[in-house]
């Protein structure tokens, strides 16, 4: 009996097996067959899918504050909105990316005694930075109630010294307004392979801005720019705004320096960062909050220090990590 059943099953399976094999192919053909009349319509269809990716520029230093050369992607983890992220989409050095630099020069009353020194450092910095052909450089000044455009995009080729000397001077200090304008310009020109940088020369004492510190900081974070704050208050006169400058620089992942340290120190800081910056990208983690705090921490060597921006904003509705409004 069992032999008979075995023979029957064997025959049945031999009969059915080709049928099972053919079915998916037929189904595939049927599906395509159905779509044939609409082929021309479908060829015009565009499929959209939002791919949300976070991109962080960061700097790694050892216990002696020296840049870490051979950093690997398993040497660090990103803490994004409390979640620990160890698997990244990409990890590269950023010295091959283009730069979009905005130099913001405070020309208000409070820094007038140092304005000449400020201009000298700005010019030295511009002439010494290792520019590449696709890099952008814009210079803005701020004083009174306004931010003034000194030159945009191609300041390296312009005769910027004369232009800087003739900017409006004196009056109040609209620092936060100027920061917001600079950040909006960077957002407007944003490209994935461009690294936005703001170099700010000011004493940090805002006296008249329409925008509050928080609003300006939000825009800077949204622009993904690293901000290098150079305290332009006079020697021996520590300004009340130093703390503000420190905070803006730290939150953006940039650095703070005093103008008295000279152009070489400031230049060295910026150049070091340009050469040592890394870019890591990863999938946007799920979160209910619009603001994602970010921090980079070591996975093995606790002596490593990492510097990056404090966080970023993600707008669920637009599916974008960028602000919805334009400049």
């Amino acid at each position: 009996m069992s032999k008979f059943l075995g023979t029957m099953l064997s025959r049945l399976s031999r009969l059915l097996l080709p049928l099972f094999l053919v079915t998916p192919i037929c189904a595939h053909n049927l599906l395509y067959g159905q779509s044939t009349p609409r082929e021309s319509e479908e060829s015009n269809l565009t499929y959209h899918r939002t791919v949300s990716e976070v991109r962080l520029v960061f700097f790694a230093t050892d216990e002696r504050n020296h840049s870490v050369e051979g950093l690997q992607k398993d040497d660090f983890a990103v803490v994004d909105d409390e979640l620990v992220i160890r698997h990244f989409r990409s990890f590269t050095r950023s010295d091959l990316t283009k730069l979009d630099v905005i130099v913001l020069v405070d020309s208000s009353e409070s820094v007038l005694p140092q304005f000449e020194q400020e201009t000298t450092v700005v010019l030295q910095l511009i002439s010494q930075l290792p520019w590449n052909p696709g890099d952008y450089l814009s210079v803005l000044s701020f004083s009174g109630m306004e931010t003034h455009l000194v030159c945009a995009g191609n300041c390296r080729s312009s005769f910027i010294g004369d232009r800087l000397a003739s900017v409006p001077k004196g009056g109040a200090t609209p620092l936060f307004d100027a920061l917001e304008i600079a950040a909006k310009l960077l957002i407007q020109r944003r490209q994935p392979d461009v690294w936005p940088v703001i170099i700010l020369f000011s004493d940090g004492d805002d006296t008249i801005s329409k925008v509050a510190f928080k609003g300006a900081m939000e825009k800077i974070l949204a622009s993904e720019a690293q901000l290098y704050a150079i305290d332009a208050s006079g020697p021996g006169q520590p300004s009340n705004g130093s703390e503000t400058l420190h905070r803006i620089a730290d939150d953006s992942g940039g650095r703070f320096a005093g103008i008295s340290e000279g152009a070489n120190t400031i230049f060295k800081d910026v150049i070091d960062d340009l050469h040592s910056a890394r870019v890591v990208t990863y999938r946007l983690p799920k979160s209910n909050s619009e603001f994602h705090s970010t921090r980079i921490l070591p996975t093995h060597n606790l002596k490593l220090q990492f510097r990056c921006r404090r966080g970023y904003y993600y707008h669920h509705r637009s599916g974008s990590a960028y602000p919805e409004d334009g400049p």
Partner: protein
Amino acid sequence: MKRAGLLIFLWCGLPSLLTAQIGIYQHGTVVRMHMGDCIAAGHGFMMAFGSPSNAMGPEPCPEYTLVSDSVVYVIVGKMSNSLIPLAETIDFRLQKNELAVRVDDAKHEAKFTIKEMIVRSEWERVRRHMDEKVRASEDHEAER
């Protein structure tokens, strides 16, 4: 002199060597981290089941969620710079109401206060629920 040196070496090195040999370390992965309130010394786990934790001062302390095979621990550093290396897998052991984490490169253990302990299956259930809520809220936002 040599003998004394050897004795000192054995005295210092033997406990950690034995620990490693016996294999009392458990393995786990840190999945979350944030800076929160510090926990008053000597309370830790007991305090977590009682009244809310006391803030120790303006400096925040790091709080980690450490997932092991069967239990999920929420642990708090004793100082703002009590950091755990965020490697894929870390070694830890329970010691007198505290959790000692082996810091590979530093060749020592860092001790953390246990704030919460949850059975892993329960923690995963809560996490799934949270994920669903986030997804639902994202879908709702996308529809608007």
